[in-house]
C-alpha cells in the first residue's frame, strides 16, 4: 500500500514513531527506544473496495470496475492494516527480572481496503 502524502486521500499508511521517553516508559523498557506504530487512513471508494493495497491483480481491478457500476454490491469498505510485524522488546518486570519477548502484530506495515 502507499505511504500517505498530501496528494491523495485514498487509503494509505500514515507513519508515526512512538519514543518510549515521550511516555516515560524508557525506565522499564530496556530495548528498543521506541517503535513505528503507524496507522491506516484514507478513503475506500467503491472502485478500490476490497483491494489489498497495491497488491491487487488486474482481475481484482476489473472486478472492482464492475462492482463500481452497481454500487449496491460494493457495500462499505474500510482502510485497514493488511500486514503487521512483531516488536521484539527487552524489559524489566515488577521483580526487576529482564524479560525478552516478541509482541505480535505491533507494527503496521501495509494498509488496504476491506
Amino acid at each position: 500500500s502507499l505511504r500517505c502524502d498530501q496528494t491523495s486521500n485514498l487509503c494509505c499508511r500514515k507513519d508515526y514513531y512512538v519514543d518510549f521517553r515521550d511516555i516515560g516508559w524508557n525506565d522499564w523498557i530496556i530495548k528498543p527506544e521506541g517503535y513505528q506504530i503507524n496507522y491506516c487512513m484514507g478513503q475506500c471508494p467503491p472502485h478500490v473496495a476490497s483491494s489489498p493495497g497495491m497488491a491487487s491483480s488486474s482481475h481484482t481491478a476489473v472486478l472492482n470496475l464492475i462492482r463500481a457500476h452497481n454500487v449496491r454490491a460494493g457495500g462499505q469498505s474500510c482502510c485497514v492494516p493488511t500486514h503487521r510485524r512483531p516488536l521484539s522488546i527487552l524489559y524489566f518486570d515488577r521483580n526487576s527480572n529482564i524479560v525478552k519477548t516478541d509482541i505480535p502484530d505491533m507494527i503496521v506495515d501495509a494498509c488496504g481496503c476491506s
Partner: protein
Amino acid sequence: GGKPGCPSCRMPTLEPGTERRFLLELAKRQILEKLHLSERPNVTQPVPRVAIANALHHLHVGEAQRDGQLGSFAHWDGPNADELGYEIISFAKTEFSSPSSTGLRFRFSRGPGQDVHILQAQLWLYVQAPWSGLSPAMLRVSLGGALLSERQLEAQASGWHTFALLPALQAFFRGQEKTLRLELECRGCQANATAGSDAGGSHQPFLVAKATMREPGQRVAKR
C-alpha cells in the same frame, strides 16, 4: 473535529496534537495488553547495570553453547500462535552467606490463571578460586534440602559455571510460589567462593529460562 473522515470507518482525520495523544495512548494500551500486564511495572530494585551487561555478554557470546549447554538469549523458533513466548533473566538476591554456603532468592510473578510452561532453565554462578587444599572442590546446588546438581571444579581459575535446572523450574512454575530459594554449597573452596553477588554486583548469580505463557481460557495449542 476537522475534515469529515472516511464515512464508512468514521475515522476522523486527526489534527497533529490529537494524533500524538491518540497514538501514545494507543501504544501504551497495546503494549500492556499484549504483555498481559494490568499496569506498567515499577522497577523498585534496579539491578546493577554491570551485572546486566555481564549476564547479556555471557549469554550472547555463546559461552554456554561452548559447554554444550543451552543458553543463547537469542530468538528461537518461537511459540504457538496463541502463546506468548519469552525468555527471562532473573538476578539472585543473597539471602544468607556463610564461608561454605550461600542462599539465593529469585522472584517470579504471574497473573491469576496464567499457565507458564518452562522450556529451558539454567543457573549461572561465578566461583572465586583458588580454593584451599589440594583436592578439587565440589559445588552443590540444592532446593529445599534436595540436591539438584553438583559439579567437581577442576580449573584453578575464577570463572562462571552453569547448571541446567529444568525439572526444578518446571515444578516451581506448576506451583503458586513466587519466590524460588536455592542453596549453594562449595566443599573444599575458599571462604565465600560463591558469594558472587557481593563482588560489587558484577558477578551476581542469575537464572536464565525460556518459557511460553498462555492466558486463562486460551484454547490449548495443538503441538
